C-alpha cells in the first residue's frame, strides 16, 4: 500500500465477529427450564462472520467494501456503525459517523410527511431548530411540496424514498457509511443519488461504501477491499479489486441442466449427448447424435437466448467455417460433432437451444429447447455482447 500521510479517521484493528447460533433458540421460560435441565446438550454453533479484519480509512477517502452475499460485508458495516459489537478487536472513529444502512429509518406511516421529517431528522442528530432552518430545502429537493401534510401511509413508495433521501443528504457527518440503499428508485432518482455521490467526492467527505455495483466502485472509490468468507481477500485499487470480485463469479462459469427443457421431433436423428464447455474466451459444444434411419441430408443448429427469449448468437453445420455442406448419416450410426467459437457473450445467464432438421428444413428430427442454462461472468466488460469493431482514428 502506498504511504498516505492523511489523518486516519476510521481504523479497524483485528476485528472478529462470531455469532452464536443456538440450535434451538431459548426464548421462553419453558425451553429455558427444560434445556437447562438437559445441561445445554444441544449447545451452540459458532458462525465466524468476520476473522481478523483490519483496515484504516483516511480522511476524505471514498472507501469501498465489496463482497458476495453472505461474505460478511454487512456485518462489518454494522460493526463500523456501532450497531454490533465486535467479538474481539476494536473500532476507532474520529468525528461524527452517520450510517445509511437503510433510508427512512424510523419513518412512521401514521405521521404526516412533515412530522416524519422531524422524526427522521432527530435520528440523524438534527434538533427541531436545525430542521426548521432547512425544511423548505428538504421538501423542495424531494419535490413533495403538496404532500407534506398528508400521512406517510398515503405516499407511494417512490415518494417515501425521495423524502427519506432528501433528509438523509442533509446529514452533517465526518464519516458516512453508505449501504446499497441507492439501488432502489427509478432512473431519475438514481441520477440524483449519483449527483450526491459526486458532491460528496468533491467536498472530500469520508465515505465508506458497501456495494455490488462494480461500475460505481470503479467510478467513485479511491480504495476498495474485497471480503470473502469473513476475510479480506483483496484490497487496493478499485479496478483491480473489482476484477478480483468479478473473478469470484468467473471461476464459476457454469452450465446447468435446466428443468424446464422442452423437446420434440420425429426422432429420425436424435441428440444423445450435448456437452458445453465455457470459459471467458471460448465456448465449445460437443454433440453425439444417432440416427434411426438413413438420412441423406441434415442440418444441426444451436443458439443462445437471453432472459427475454431473444436469440443473441447461434450457428449451424451450414455456416460453420469449415462446414457448409449438408451432412448425411446412416441408420444406427453415431456421429460426433464439435463446435468451437469465440465467447462473445457478456456477463449473464443464457439458455442454450438446439435443433436437428432435414436438409431442406421442412422436417424437425429433434428440437431441444432450453437444454441448459449457461452462466457467464466476465471481468473485462459489462457489455452484453462485445462488438469487435474495425476502428479508424483520424
Amino acid at each position: 500500500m502506498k504511504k498516505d500521510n492523511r489523518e486516519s479517521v476510521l481504523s479497524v484493528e483485528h476485528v472478529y465477529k462470531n455469532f452464536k447460533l443456538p440450535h434451538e433458540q431459548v426464548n421462553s421460560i419453558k425451553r429455558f427450564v427444560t434445556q437447562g435441565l438437559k445441561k445445554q446438550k444441544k449447545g451452540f454453533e459458532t458462525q465466524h462472520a468476520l476473522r481478523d479484519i483490519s483496515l484504516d480509512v483516511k480522511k476524505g477517502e471514498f472507501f469501498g467494501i465489496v463482497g458476495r452475499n453472505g461474505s460478511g460485508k454487512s456485518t462489518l458495516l454494522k460493526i463500523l456503525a456501532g450497531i454490533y459489537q465486535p467479538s474481539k478487536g476494536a473500532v476507532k472513529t474520529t468525528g461524527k459517523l452517520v450510517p445509511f444502512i437503510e433510508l427512512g429509518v424510523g419513518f412512521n406511516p401514521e405521521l404526516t410527511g412533515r412530522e416524519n421529517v422531524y422524526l427522521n431528522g432527530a435520528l440523524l442528530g438534527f434538533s427541531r431548530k436545525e430542521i426548521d432552518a432547512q425544511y423548505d430545502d428538504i421538501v423542495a429537493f424531494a419535490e413533495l411540496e403538496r404532500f407534506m401534510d398528508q400521512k406517510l401511509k398515503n405516499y407511494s413508495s417512490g415518494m417515501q424514498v425521495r423524502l427519506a433521501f432528501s433528509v438523509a443528504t442533509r446529514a452533517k457527518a465526518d464519516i458516512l457509511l453508505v449501504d446499497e440503499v441507492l439501488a432502489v428508485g427509478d432512473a431519475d432518482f438514481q441520477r440524483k443519488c449519483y449527483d450526491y455521490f459526486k458532491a460528496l467526492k468533491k467536498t472530500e467527505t469520508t465515505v465508506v461504501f458497501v456495494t455490488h455495483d462494480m461500475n460505481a466502485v470503479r467510478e467513485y472509490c479511491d480504495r476498495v477491499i474485497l471480503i470473502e468468507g469473513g476475510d479480506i481477500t483483496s484490497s487496493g485499487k478499485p479496478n483491480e479489486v473489482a476484477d478480483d470480485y468479478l473473478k469470484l463469479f468467473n471461476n464459476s462459469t457454469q452450465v446447468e441442466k435446466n428443468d424446464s427443457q422442452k423437446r420434440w421431433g420425429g426422432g429420425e436423428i436424435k441428440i444423445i449427448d450435448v456437452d458445453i464447455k465455457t470459459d471467458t474466451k471460448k465456448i465449445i459444444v460437443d454433440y453425439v447424435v444417432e440416427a434411426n434411419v438413413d438420412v441423406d441430408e441434415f442440418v444441426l443448429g444451436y443458439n443462445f437466448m437471453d432472459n427475454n427469449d431473444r436469440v443473441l448468437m447461434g450457428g449451424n453445420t451450414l455456416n460453420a467455417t469449415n462446414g457448409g455442406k449438408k451432412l448425411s448419416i446412416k441408420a444406427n450410426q453415431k456421429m460426433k460433432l464439435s463446435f468451437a467459437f469465440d465467447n462473445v457473450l457478456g456477463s449473464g445467464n443464457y439458455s442454450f437451444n438446439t435443433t436437428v432438421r432435414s436438409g431442406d428444413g421442412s422436417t424437425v428430427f429433434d428440437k431441444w429447447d432450453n437444454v441448459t442454462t449457461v452462466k457467464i461472468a466476465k471481468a473485462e466488460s459489462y457489455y452484453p455482447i462485445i462488438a469487435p469493431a474495425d476502428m479508424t482514428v483520424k
Partner: protein
Amino acid sequence: MLKKLAEKYNYSLILLKELVITDFKLRYQGSLLGYVWSLLRPLALFVILYFVFVKFLRIGDSVPHFPVYLLLGIVLWNYFAEVTNGGVGAIVGRGDLIRKLNFPKYVIVLSGSFSALINLALNFIVVGVFMWINGVDVTWNILWAPLLVLELFVFALAVAFFLSAIFVRLRDVNYIWEVIMQGAFYATPIIYPLSAMSVDIAKILILNPAAQIIQDMRYVVITQDSQTISSLYGTPWMRLVPIAFVIFLAITSALYFRRRSNHFAEEV
C-alpha cells in the same frame, strides 16, 4: 464541564424530545375525543370503582374525602402500570430501528416514561378539580408531592428498564408481568384504605414502594388521616427502606440494561 456534558447528551436529548412528541401525537390518532381520553379513562375507572366500593360496599366511610383519595390512588397506579407495561415491549417494539442505527437505547424506555408523565400531569388536573369540589383543605405539606412523584418516576423507570431488557431474551416476560400487575393492584392500597387491613398486614404491604408512595401522597395532598409508613412503624426513618429499595433497583436495572443494550441489535 456543563457544556461538555450537554454536548455528550445532545443527541439523546433531541431524540428523546422527538420520540415523546411522536408518541403523544400517535397516542390518540384517529379518535374523536383525542387527548380528552387521557382524562376520561381514569375518570371512567374512578366512577366504576366509586360506585362499587364507596356506594355499595361502603369501604371508605372511615376516610374523609374518600372519592378523591380513591381517584389519586388510581391515577398514581395508572402511571406506574403505563410505564412498566409499556416498558416490557419498548425495546422489542423498536427492533427495526435498533438493527439499523446505533443510538442510545435508554432513550426509548425514557421516552415512554416521559409520555406517561405528561399523562400523569393531565390527570393531576382532574384530581385538583375533584379536590376543589370535595372541599379538601390544601396544606403546605403538598410541597412534598413533587419528591414523591420523583420517587415514583424512578421506581417505574427502573422496573421498565429491567423488563424491557429481559424481554429481549425471554419472551414470556410480558405474560408474567401481566399477572404480577394484576396481583399487585390488589396488594397495593388503591381501592381500599390501608386502615381496612390488620396492622400486621398493613406493615408488610406498606413496604412496597408503590404503596408507600400512594399513601404518602394521600397524606400530603388530601388528608392526614392516611396511614403512612411513618405512622405504621412509628418512625419517619422507616421510609428509607422502600426508598433504598428503589435506589438499589434503579442502579442494578440501569447496569443490567447498559450491559445488555450492546447486544440488543443481534438479539431483538
